[in-house]
């Protein structure tokens, strides 16, 4: 049944028992993102030490998909370098554009861990933005809190 494809048990677990929820100090940047078509909201803070994302804290309200997504994202990105976290975000974006293609999900399983369970969401265009909201907020907050240094593992354009 399609509905279970989207509402994987792992997603409902994150929704009912969110990881890392609550706004914490200290932080380097705070952003507030909304989904204007439905009113879902997330306030998200990041703390960066050097290149490392040492904390992501958040408050939000929204549907199970948006709330589970931010919880799964917390598990994935805290402790990673900012470029690695953003690369994981790119992988998640690819998953959301996969239209339910299981090959894409298989390929991204190592990178996305629990978050690969959101593969079923990609079959429902109206819900993709729910899943992406927190990742957009993370990208925004990271850009405010952190600028690539010469030692950062990002490629400068030639």
């Amino acid at each position: 049944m399609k509905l279970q494809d989207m509402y994987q048990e792992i997603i409902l677990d994150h929704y009912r028992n969110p990881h890392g929820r609550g706004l914490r100090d200290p932080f380097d940047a705070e952003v507030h993102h909304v989904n204007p078509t439905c009113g879902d909201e997330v306030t998200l803070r990041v703390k960066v030490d050097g290149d490392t994302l040492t904390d992501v804290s958040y408050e939000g309200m929204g549907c199970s998909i948006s709330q589970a997504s931010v919880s799964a994202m917390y598990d994935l990105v805290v402790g990673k370098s900012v470029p690695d976290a953003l690369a994981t975000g790119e992988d998640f974006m690819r998953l959301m554009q996969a239209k339910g293609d299981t090959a894409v999900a298989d390929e991204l399983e190592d990178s996305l861990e629990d978050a690969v369970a959101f593969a079923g969401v990609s079959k429902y265009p109206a819900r993709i933005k729910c899943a992406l909201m927190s990742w957009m907020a993370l990208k925004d907050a990271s850009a405010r809190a952190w600028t690539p240094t010469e030692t950062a593992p990002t490629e400068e354009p030639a």
Partner: protein
Amino acid sequence: MTATATAPATGRTPLPLDVEAVRADFPILGRTVRDGKRLVYLDSGATSQKPRQVLDAERWFYENVNAAPHRGAHALAEEATEAYEQARVTIASFIGAQPDEVVFTRNSTEAINLVAYAMSNAVTAKEPEFHRYAVGEGDEVVVTEMEHHANLIPWQQLCERTGATLRWLGLTDDGRLDLSDLDTVVNERTKLVTVTQQSNILGTMPPLAPIIERAHAVGALVMVDGAQSVPHQPVDVAALGADFLVFSGHKMLGPTGVGVLWGRAEVLAALPPFLTGGSMIEVVRMEGSTFAPPPQRFEAGVPMTAQVIGLAAAADYLTALGMDKVQAHEEALTEYALAQLQAIPGVRVIGPVDTVARGGAISFTVEGIHPHDVGQVLDDQGIAVRVGHHCAWPVVRRYGVPATTRATFYVHTGYDDVDALVEGVRHAQRFFGVDGGEEA
């Protein structure tokens, strides 16, 4: 709401419309969704489905008549002009108006913007006769807290452009318009009062008579947003007594891309244009131009001719059903649905919980399940509802909910559709493990 409060004893009064006969006119209702499920379309408040008669009218126009009306002297141009103006007569008659008081716009939103921009264009118009309804500093515009964004943002913007002040009437806890401060909110500084005839999210039908009376007593214009009323109840502009009425074709079985601004003749005559260009002019010279009288003054460019003709077919279709019957049909469904939904533990109706001064838009929340998730489970069963803030964000904020699930009814809705909705909500509760009143 508690389970014991309402026993679902409410009977099904016989529906005034023959649902099966009506459904046979709507080709889309014959399709299935989500792996073969019957389409239960409860989202007419967002846009209505179209009967074959409307589709045939548009096809007839394109296959037989298509030409730009009010231009050219060839046979098709004459016939297109005749068809377009005959459609105006039909649509005017549908709301008890004179044809030259009916302006075709893209939708209600554009009709409202037309008036809002005309009132700021009046400030700088070179023609003295267009200054009458100019808005500026010290003037006030009054809206209500239950307006659709389409009847809020244009007025916020008008006030920002002109320095006027936006004021509003609030809501009561039971989903009604709060008129307790009507006499202070609407005062000698008020230039225009605008109010919905039927809230798209709450279903509430505010009492318009005292608002119109007060507004006219202080010399203000009154606009009525009929986007959710004209499709669902008889509306007669003469009886209404307002200065403007707006509505959209696509919500009343008509095509997208056509809406109506009705305005009292002497008010329209004193308004400068909003959009300018071809066919709205009188004389054009390089140094400056003069404008045609209404309604042409407000219909720049080649109009949405086929859509206007489709809308006239929709008006004819509704007239044949009888708007009194349409309203009674939806009231019976609403009464039944309100009782059935409120009998479900955890369901809270946002808006009036009885059918007094209420239309058929029913918004509700289900404890422990976000409206998006309710909507998703319903969708999986073929039931189309709207979820979110319904372009009325201040309303959901007022009632302390992030969003709602909304069901809306129309001429093809039957008790089986309501039963599907109610069972669908129960299914959502089981799916998310919040049934039996055991909230998460």
